[in-house]
């Protein structure tokens, strides 16, 4: 595809369940970001992958959150034992990894924990 693809677009889960959110970046993009956006709020940085470097996990809010990027392409964000405060839109973005280039965003996954 031409853009960043995220799946699912919407996810409703019960409190305590684990969820996996997927991001397919633009082919060839070395940088990949995950952000969390609560209703009407700004972007909360979660994690950043750049090429083969160790990811910057400094934004992950707790050890229930983890992310991986396989083969430098697809990324999965996993939230274990979901809580109601995890409800938000999770946005993924990718870029060529060069400073002056923009990041391209997916449409996001809206996660609702009930």
């Amino acid at each position, binding site marked *: 595809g031409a853009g960043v693809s995220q799946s699912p677009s919407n996810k409703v889960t019960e409190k305590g369940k684990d969820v996996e959110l997927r991001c397919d970046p633009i082919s060839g993009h070395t*940088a990949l*970001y995950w*952000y969390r956006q609560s209703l*009407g*709020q*700004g*972007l909360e*940085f979660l994690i*950043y992958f*750049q090429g083969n470097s160790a990811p*910057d996990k400094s934004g992950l809010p707790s050890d229930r959150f983890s992310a991986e990027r396989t083969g430098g392409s697809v990324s999965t964000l996993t939230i274990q034992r979901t809580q109601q405060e995890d409800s938000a*839109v999770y*946005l993924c*973005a990718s*870029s060529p*990894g*060069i*400073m*002056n280039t*923009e*990041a391209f*965003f997916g*449409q*996001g996954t809206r996660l609702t924990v009930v």
Partner: protein
Amino acid sequence: AQTVTQSQPEMSVQEAETVTLSCTYDTSESDYYLFWYKQPPSRQMILVIRQEAYKQQNATENRFSVNFQKAAKSFSLKISDSQLGDAAMYFCAYTGSARQLTFGSGTQLTVLP
């Protein structure tokens, strides 16, 4: 660590008028890039305009222009001839040597008919 501050959570403008959204940032780097992104209700983030720190000339893209004051670490966005379709959340963002995007908290812009 770099920080980006948007001090206006909400702004409104009359259709066809001009509005300016504020952004300040903090960095010790001399080479970096600044961006304004727009997020309409569809949630799709769209790049509006970018500015290279080493360029003194302010970037412009049609009705959108910036006022980049490097010494003051200020990067405001001016929207001229505002249109209903400009209504969105606007985010200021910074990227430097770490190549990581840092976003401000956003400004919700309402365009009044």
